[in-house]
């Protein structure tokens, strides 16, 4: 018998509810499989994943995750088996689709680990409920319904509130809690539309009960263990992904815990799990009554959290189980003891979600049964307060200065934790807050203790004892400084003079019972420091913290690669990060992991402890680059581009001087500190202009403004403007091509990784744009000029390591927009496109090695596309602009641009299969109407039926004009909702409000699951690609088959 070949399905682009955790589980799975001599075929459309590196899997496909594509891969690779449980709900649903279509059977592909039968039982509410009745595990009264009337009947007889959950959706999308009939109708309409099966579950609400999760592993012999139990601080009614979670549970007695443990084990045995499983339970802590809410028969966000919280690698163990090993025979990689035990923690872990409301100000901040968060942070401490405070500062969110508690307590918002603290500061009692929020009093009393300590710090004389108490409760130096009206440096100095220094403890899965080999640490203020400085040459890599819009998995990819590169160079890597979902925080990604907040204090403490040769700050996005200067000032060697170079790149005036000196054009620009100055600058520059606050991440609060009126509104409403916080105003270059270059420099030479071109015209944020490599519209002269400029800028800034430079090109003139001397979002995409890991080259450059001499040659096309969270964050318009909105990216590769582009969009969920009958609804703003003839030509060639508003299609032959909303029947909205239309092309007017017709149409198409394209160029290129591919099969290949 030859090598066993196994197909592993990834989870595709990062979306809300499905984040970096599946790169973590998938990567661990691939490694565990290969350890056993299994050949791994990995499929994922997300290039920013370690699992798609050729070092991780034997055979890599970066292709759209659809059943058709997977069937082609199965035909080509003939795998023996498939693992369905590593790629989140996406991977699981796909494997089940392949199973139901008979594709697996046809090609004789078996399930490895938890099989189709078990998955079906866990996922189908009816089967699951029947099984629970059989094994006598209590469930919530509920009914699976196919229509609104049945839901109403259920609620009528069981009473409101009820929870509605559409079947087979991700992160609770489309679900909600209905307190009355009207809300029920509203939620049900959406739920039925979104459910893959047209079904939704209506359940009696147990809002306010305690919510608990049990992470279980079980092998095929029936051995099982609970790896971690976790308690949601936010009681039932808030999705577990939206809750602040603590591990282990804090308020359960052993009797309670064993009750829930028994139920969890009973369930996994009855379902027949072979691998990992997540069980969610609710307990009425007033009575002890409990119910099981649901199970996830796969690796999950919670399993990643549990792995990081305990040190127990669930995905690795689940993979070994899938291969047929028994749990006791599998070694706990940390302690070399058996994996059949249950981890014991000697610390508390707190997880807090990271929400994107700073990017989506129009979306309601209320949190509930549907996920809205994009990422999360985790922190570890020896007390609950310590873990909580560390987690809060890991979030890197601005805590509002003034907060009105009652606006956030119930229904809860993302700011509830701050509202609770504020309420306690104002003297509200824990009992009152418990009645209001149902949060367990134990947690509220811990918050009360925090507030009491705050008060003592601000009122008493600071002593060594008080300082130690403050640090043991997790207060940071800056926090203490604010309570004592001092500054961080003084507090730090005072603290050191007291001898109050952090100690580091190991996360060892066994509470110290066995000697641990893991190099996984957290800080606390105790007696013994277990982190004796690593010997030999060592480098610290700063991670990127929680996944948020603008700072996603791409940066974690770079940090992980840096750790691997250092290992390859024979150096030791020390990782600092606080995101439990990631590969970088896997215990064996680096030589040492510090699970810590990424603030100056926390990082500097580690620097003091380890005394590394240098710190790499350019790979973790804004989070890490922001620490460059303070670390440098504190005497730490920052590797790579010098601080001054970073400053020139970030300082507008200095950068303008540099561009002038180098003779590189910039769009005309200016700064303003008030409305008057802004209007003057704009009139000087000439509209349209791009406005934004200085020093921003991923284009926060950036807008294109076309008139004095719009500019006034922006200055007065959108941003805070002051002498210290000027607004930047740039000429917006219309109808231009936006390009960017990712390059590496060693200080002398420059290695061009990739020259990319945006498909959309300039003005769409580079994180949201569809991007192609190599460029397709630029002339050779223009390309040469871009390369030349990149070299000049890099040298002048003294770039050592990565740099990303953005340009616009119009009519042969190249303008530079900005230079970022750090890893960009496109680094993984470029690395995958050219087949060269440019991060590794950058790390070598930072450590003094010379660049490789060759130039990458690309003979195929790679396109990056993006996915948006609009469905989860209703109320936000889906128009694109200079502010980034997307959560994740996909990559399409092809021998032609069209093929690559089509695949990238297909992977991003724009499903317009060729050969099907399509109809499009078009409504364009006036300035785009010039593109109508071209659009119509393409649509007609493809056989589309064309609908549209009178203003857009009135003069188009053969097109059907539809009345405006409310001006006839069926109107535009009804037509979209009817499902008659398969594509909506709608370009929004500038600066429109949220209740316009266009907004309602876009929203309707999102809710109906119809692709809605808001940019005419995007649409034209898609149609061209469809036309080009009309006669062709999708070309699916291994990544390396595209080269050459």
């Amino acid at each position: 018998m030859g090598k066993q070949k196994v197909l592993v399905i990834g989870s595709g682009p990062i979306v809300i509810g499905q984040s970096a955790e599946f790169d973590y589980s998938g990567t661990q799975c691939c490694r565990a499989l290969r350890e056993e001599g299994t050949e791994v075929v990995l499929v994922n459309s997300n290039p920013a994943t370690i699992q798609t590196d050729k070092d991780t899997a034997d055979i890599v496909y970066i292709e759209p995750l659809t059943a058709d594509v997977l069937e082609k891969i199965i035909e080509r690779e003939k795998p023996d088996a498939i693992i369905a449980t590593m790629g989140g709900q996406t991977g699981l649903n796909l494997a089940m689709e392949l199973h139901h279509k008979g594709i697996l059977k046809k090609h004789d592909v078996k399930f490895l680990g938890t099989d189709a039968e078990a998955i079906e039982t866990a996922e189908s509410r009816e089967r699951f409920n029947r099984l629970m009745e059989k094994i006598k595990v209590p469930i919530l009264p509920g009914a699976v319904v196919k229509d609104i009337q049945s839901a109403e009947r259920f609620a009528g007889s069981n009473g409101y509130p009820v929870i509605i959950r559409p079947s087979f959706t991700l992160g609770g999308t489309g679900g909600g809690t209905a307190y009355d009939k009207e809300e029920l109708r509203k939620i049900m309409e959406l739920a039925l539309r979104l459910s893959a099966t047209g079904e939704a579950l209506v359940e009696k609400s147990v809002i306010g009960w305690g919510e608990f999760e049990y992470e279980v592993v079980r092998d095929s012999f029936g051995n099982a263990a609970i790896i971690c139990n976790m308690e949601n601080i936010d009681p039932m009614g808030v999705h577990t992904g939206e809750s602040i979670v603590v591990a282990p549970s804090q308020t359960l007695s052993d009797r309670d815990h064993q009750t829930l443990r028994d139920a969890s084990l009973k369930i996994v045995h009855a379902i027949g799990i072979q691998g990992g499983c997540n069980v969610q339970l609710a307990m009425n802590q007033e009575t002890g009554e409990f119910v099981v809410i649901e199970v996830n028969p796969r690796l999950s966000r919670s399993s990643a959290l549990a792995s990081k919280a305990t040190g127990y690698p669930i995905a690795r163990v689940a993979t070994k189980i899938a291969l047929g090993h028994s749990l006791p025979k599998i070694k706990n990689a940390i302690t070399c003891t058996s994996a059949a035990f249950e981890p014991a923690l000697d610390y508390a872990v707190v997880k807090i979600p990271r929400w994107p409301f700073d990017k989506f100000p129009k979306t309601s901040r209320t949190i509930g049964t549907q996920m809205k968060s994009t990422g999360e942070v985790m922190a570890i401490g020896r007390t609950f307060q310590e873990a909580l405070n560390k987690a809060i500062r890991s979030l890197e969110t601005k805590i509002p200065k003034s907060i009105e508690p009652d606006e956030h307590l119930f229904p809860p918002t993302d700011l509830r934790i701050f509202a609770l603290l504020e309420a306690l500061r104002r003297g509200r009692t824990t009992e009152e807050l418990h009645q209001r929020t149902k949060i367990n009093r134990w947690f509220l009393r811990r918050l009360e203790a925090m507030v009491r300590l705050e008060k003592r710090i601000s009122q008493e004389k600071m002593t060594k004892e008080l300082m130690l108490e403050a640090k043991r409760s997790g207060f940071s130096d800056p926090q203490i400084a604010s309570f004592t009206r001092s500054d961080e440096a003084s507090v730090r100095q005072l603290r050191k003079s007291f001898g109050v220094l952090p100690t580091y403890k190991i996360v060892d899965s066994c509470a110290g019972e066995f000697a641990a080999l893991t190099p996984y640490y957290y800080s606390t203020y105790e007696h013994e420091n277990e982190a004796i400085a690593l010997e030999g040459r060592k480098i610290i890599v700063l991670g990127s913290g929680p996944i948020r819009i603008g700072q996603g998995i791409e940066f974690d990819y770079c940090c992980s690669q840096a750790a691997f590169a250092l290992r390859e160079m024979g150096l030791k890597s020390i990782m600092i990060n606080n995101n439990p979902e990631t590969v970088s925080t896997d215990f064996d990604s680096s030589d040492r992991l510090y699970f810590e907040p990424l603030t100056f204090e926390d990082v500097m403490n580690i620097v003091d402890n380890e005394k590394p040769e240098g710190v790499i700050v350019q790979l973790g996005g804004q989070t890490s680059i922001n620490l460059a200067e303070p670390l440098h000032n504190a005497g730490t060697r920052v590797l790579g581009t010098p601080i001054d170079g970073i400053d020139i790149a970030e300082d507008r005036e200095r950068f303008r001087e540099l561009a002038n000196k180098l003779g590189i054009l910039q769009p005309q620009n200016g700064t303003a500190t008030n409305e008057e100055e802004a209007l003057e600058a704009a009139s000087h520059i000439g509209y349209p202009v791009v406005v934004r606050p200085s020093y921003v991440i991923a284009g926060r609060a950036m807008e294109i403004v076309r008139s004095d009126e719009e500019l006034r509104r922006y200055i007065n409403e959108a941003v805070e403007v002051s002498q210290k916080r000027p607004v930047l105003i740039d000429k917006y270059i219309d109808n231009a091509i936006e390009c960017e270059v990712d390059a590496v420099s060693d200080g002398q030479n420059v290695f061009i990784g990739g020259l990319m071109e945006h498909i959309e015209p300039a003005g769409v944020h580079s994180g949201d744009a569809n991007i192609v490599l190599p460029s397709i519209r630029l002339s050779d002269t223009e390309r040469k000029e871009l390369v030349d400029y990149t070299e000049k800028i890099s040298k002048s800034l003294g770039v050592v390591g990565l740099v990303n430079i953005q340009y616009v090109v119009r009519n042969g003139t190249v303008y530079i927009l900005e230079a970022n001397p750090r890893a960009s979002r496109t680094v993984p995409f470029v690395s995958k496109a050219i087949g060269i890991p440019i991060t590794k080259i950058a790390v070598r450059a930072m450590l003094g090695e010379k660049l490789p001499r060759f130039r990458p040659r690309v003979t195929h096309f790679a396109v990056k596309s993006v996915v948006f969270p609009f469905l989860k964050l209703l109320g936000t318009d889906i128009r694109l602009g200079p502010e980034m909105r997307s959560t994740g990216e996909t990559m399409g590769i092809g021998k032609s641009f069209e093929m690559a582009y089509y695949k990238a969009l297909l992977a991003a969920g724009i499903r317009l299969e060729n050969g099907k009958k399509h109809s499009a609804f078009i409504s364009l703003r006036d300035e785009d109407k010039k593109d109508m003839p071209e659009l119509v030509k393409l649509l007609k060639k493809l056989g589309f039926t064309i609908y549209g508003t009178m203003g857009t299609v009135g003069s188009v032959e053969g097109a059907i004009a539809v009345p405006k909303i409310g001006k006839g029947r069926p109107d535009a909205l009804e037509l979209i909702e009817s499902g008659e239309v398969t594509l909506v092309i709608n370009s929004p007017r500038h600066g429109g409000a949220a209740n316009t017709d266009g907004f309602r149409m876009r929203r309707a198409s999102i809710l109906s699951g119809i692709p809605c394209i808001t940019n005419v160029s995007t649409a034209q290129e898609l149609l061209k690609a469809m036309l080009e591919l009309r006669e062709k099969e999708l070309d699916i290949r291994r990544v390396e088959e595209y080269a050459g």
Partner: protein
Amino acid sequence: MKAVLALGDGTILHGLGFGAEAEQVGELVFNTSMMGYQEALTDPSYGGQILLMTYPLIGNYGINPTDHESGLIHARGFVVRELSADAEHRDSGLTADSFLKEHGIPGIHGIDTRFLVRHIREKGVMPAIIAASKNDSAIDPKKLLAKLASPDSFNYSKTDFVSLASTKHVRVFGEGGKKRVAMIDYGAKMGIVRELVARGCEVHLLPCHSTAEEVKAVGPDGILLSNGPGDPAILKDAHSIIRALGGYKPMFGICLGHQLIGHAFGGDTYKLKFGHRGSNHAVLDVKSGRSFVTTQNHGFAVGKIPEGFELTQVNANDTSVEGMRNDAKGIFSVQYHPEASPGPHDTRFLFDEFVKMM
């Protein structure tokens, strides 16, 4: 309140006191259960020991009237990282602090318990002294160390903790049950009694010094040898009584009971460096290859298995003896605690087996 913990090797830690203002000597041991501190405190097997919980946040859900494993706190002192001042649970009657106070047991918190665990792991369990007092100056660490050093102060392995923990007169539970179990109380956890009663047994809990005749006089269908504190090697009387009862009726030994069976039939025991105490220990069934998560609390283990006995289960980590049986004599025993309390219920089926044998 202030408190000091001094160890036999001279290590001294200063912390905050709770529970009773008192001074106690005992063997310092650690337990890795994250919940179940109430059951542990009242577990007679902790007689003569100072109990350290490795989980740092203790007392969160208070003390309830139902989860006691005996009527007393048997541990001599309690060491935790942070004691919850308040208790939050529907069943909670009082805080851990008041509970210790009621029973005259001192506690210390605010100290680096993980450091102590690693210290014990490296050096082995050792005698320690815990002193808690409202009067800070009343505690003199040097005097504490001197007390520990004096030869007659404390010798864990020489002390008969069993006699102290055992019932003084026969107690009957589950009266009228279908099967009658004579349970010799070496310091039994009530959890064992509860499991037997739940299976329809009438349990006669007998003093540890009961003779074979006194045991037989109960007219039992089976004999259960309970858990208990201390070194099994010194309980010579128990060895001979058990030997005399061998083959008389089905016999089930738990923890100390299991070790005593070892001694009674010609095997031996040895002291582990720092014991197994927690709710997460994996045990392997030799024949089936199955694994179970078990509750453990023992500082000694069976070394040589007596002749006629077969090894049935081993510890998945250090392969120490976890279970043995002698079918000819109808004896089986386990080192761990199938009654759990606290801990997982995975091996409760052993009680079913015992009932079936009777």
